[in-house]
């Protein structure tokens, strides 16, 4: 089977302004969402307690809410269904330092008249640990981007590095916007998903850039737009196929993987789509806007080649004893 076969390169770069506008709009919308609505930090980062309770049969959610409201300490606690209607999750900002009777045990006592249930999970994070985890999370994001920037600069050229980092900032921002929009709880696994998007988005961008780098050497037309069009068209098939397999796999994770990792798989799902889009429509145009010059690059490459040849010549001369 073969779906993507183009005799002529697609004219993508001539439409780059339109895609640029779309990307800028999406990024700005995401930033606005993040700044106004803000993240719904889960207990990993905000501190607090989460108690997951499974009932035999349908969970009596109103009774549970009443039982919890009867204790003033848990004011502001939220009770929601979790995955199915026999399972609920209670979230409170409270955390207890006591090892003996903790909030999970107290909830068990509070709920004892609401029916037959089992406490399946109690997660508690102190406020101090929460802020430590948040700092660590931001730090890891920053370090990953830095590492990638350095690697791409070494393997390609600094403009490629800037363009790829812009593409991945674009992806992560939009993914975060989606997380805010859909009220997904931000926990450690959401952070892991964002870091994975970072790697994935880059993976995609690099494949396209690799082709562009090759195109610069082999394609006669010195116009960067044309080279990009041709290279992107050549990799379009791969980009789509890999994205599809990854997308379907993440989709099975989202649908069948269980409620606990739904935030993780949702974030990834958004990331795969945005990451694919950005490698074609964001990274490459940025390369153009940054004023990447095919001529300069070729001259530099030619010079490098010349220097290497000269070196070899010298060595040959040295070895044959003429120098």
């Amino acid at each position, binding site marked *: 089977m073969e779906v993507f076969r183009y005799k002529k390169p697609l004219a993508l770069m001539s439409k780059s302004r339109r895609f640029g506008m779309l990307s800028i709009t999406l990024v700005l919308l995401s930033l606005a969402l993040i700044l106004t609505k803000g993240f719904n930090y889960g207990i990993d980062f905000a501190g607090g307690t989460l108690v997951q309770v499974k009932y035999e049969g349908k969970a009596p959610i109103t009774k549970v809410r009443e039982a919890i409201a009867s204790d003033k300490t848990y004011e502001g606690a939220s009770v929601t269904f979790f995955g199915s209607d026999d399972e609920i999750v209670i979230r409170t900002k409270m955390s207890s330092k006591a090892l003996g009777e903790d909030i999970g045990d107290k909830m068990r006592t509070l709920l004892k008249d609401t029916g037959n249930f089992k406490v399946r*999970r109690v997660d508690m994070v*102190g406020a101090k640990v929460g802020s430590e985890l948040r700092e660590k999370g931001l730090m890891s994001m920053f370090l990953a981007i830095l590492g990638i920037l350095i690697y791409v600069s070494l393997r390609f050229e600094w403009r490629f590095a800037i363009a790829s980092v812009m593409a991945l900032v674009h992806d992560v921002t939009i993914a975060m916007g989606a997380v805010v929009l859909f009220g997904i709880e931000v926990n450690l696994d959401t952070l892991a998903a964002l*870091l994975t998007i970072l*790697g*994935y988005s880059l993976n995609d961008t690099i494949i396209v850039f690799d082709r562009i780098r090759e195109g610069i050497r082999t394609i006669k037309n010195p116009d960067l737009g044309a080279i990009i069009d041709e290279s992107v068209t050549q990799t379009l098939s791969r980009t789509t196929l890999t994205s599809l*397999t990854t997308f379907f796999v993440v989709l099975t994770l989202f649908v069948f993987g*269980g409620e*606990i*990792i739904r935030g*993780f798989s949702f974030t990834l799902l958004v990331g795969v789509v945005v990451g694919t889009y950005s490698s074609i429509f964001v990274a490459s145009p940025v390369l153009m806007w940054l004023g990447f010059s095919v001529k300069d690059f070729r001259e530099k490459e030619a010079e490098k080649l010349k220097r290497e040849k000269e070196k070899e010549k010298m060595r040959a001369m040295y070895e044959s004893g003429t120098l």
Partner: protein
Amino acid sequence: MKTLNFRVILFAFALIFGVVFSIPSITQSESGKKITLGLDLQGGLHMLLGIKSEVAIESRIKSMAATIKYLFDDEEIIFDELRMVDGERIDFELLDSDDVKKATALLKKELSGITLTQNGMKFSVAMTPQEVTRTKQNAISQAVDTIRTRLDSFGLAEPTVAKQGTDKILVEVPGIKTQADEQRIRELIARAAHLQLMAVDEGRDARVMAMSPAEAKSYGDVILPDVATHRKYLLRAIPILDGSMLTDAKVGFDKNNQPVINFSLNGQGSKIFGDFTGKNVGNRMAVVLDNKVYSAPNIRERIGGGHVQISGSFTLPEAHDLAIALRSGALLAPVFVEEKRSVGPSLGADSIKASSLALALGFVLVIAFMFLYYGMAGVVANVALIGNLFLILAIMSLFGATLTLPGMAGIVLTVGMAVDANVIINERIRELLHEGKSVAKAIEDGYNNAFTAILDANVTTLIAAVVLYAYGTGAIKGFALTMSIGILASMLTAIVGTHGIYQWLLPKIDRKRLNFWFGIKTEGAK
């Protein structure tokens, strides 16, 4: 047919290695190295504990004060009183200026790790910063040892207790069945287990219910509550002896068949206990545990031999846990919870079911898709993908790595991304075939052209995964680990493995049947 090339042999070895070493994990056999399931998959308790190390400092200062008092009394140096300031230093003033030299020399000789400030006859004794650090570290490592001993004696499978960072303790206990059990374990860990035998202040105890703590202090007494009733006791503040002289503690039964704890004292403890009981016949002696009075029996006669009994209103499990706590010794400083995650075994089982289903479905989808789209080339890629899965399991088994729920997600994700390398290669080969190259040339050039792209793409993803591993905690580390192993394994299976398979199959590949082999219809047959 061409003889086997080195690539296909290498791949075959990798595959055999993968299968052999992942078998123990897949069958969960008793022998052999295998993957351990994370607490989120098998159920259990994960806690990060902090420690109030300032309490350890305070008690060091307290014992220093006791030593100073003993030394000065012994040498007949007169002073006003010892004042503990902010729990970090001891101030006192000498009353005779002739004693200054003697006192200074004595303190310097007998106490280590202190700084001594002297102004006229005013003295101030504090711990040096190094001594403070040492004491804090000591409190942590002692807590780690104590908690480990307690959990081990409780009889649970493989609990983990380890110091984390400079001031935290990681506790992981797998295989807890109910929440009540979990609570019991937490209480056992938290138990200070500070045992004291104290004399009742018989002259004033009758007035205890109306007495303020300040008044009690002025007599050198403390007021402590009874463990079960509302009764309070007035006790001499300086104990007769404490738990440090205890050698053993066991659960026994009294004549009413109620559980009690019998404990034995060491030589010094037995002597002190014998002397005290001998001198105080007719008075009461309180058995105090964690500042609660368990019993305060009358002393009928001198008790030698150093065997003492704590009776109280224990249930049998309580008595059992208490005996463990007493045997393991007291915690130098109390611990508290910074982070706690507990998962019931049924939820863990559900998570395994759900993520395995996702893995299986994702796997089938990808395999079917690759076959449909690429024909035999897809099958070759699928062989590599299967090899990749086994390799991940084998490497994780060999390292005894922990598989967490995010780790499962990492494997699922790897399945989606591992075919990427083969997609890139297959696309390159197809391009070259369309250009009319021979099959052998198309395969060789295809691999050469694809290599840099695959390398660069994988290294960048690996950078993100490594950072995640370095900065992640707990379950997230598992995700980063499976991702990293998956990336490395896929480089081996997808680049080396499939290349070898093509070289091996090459003589069979017919240029006329490209649709079967590579899933394309091309006109330029040569």
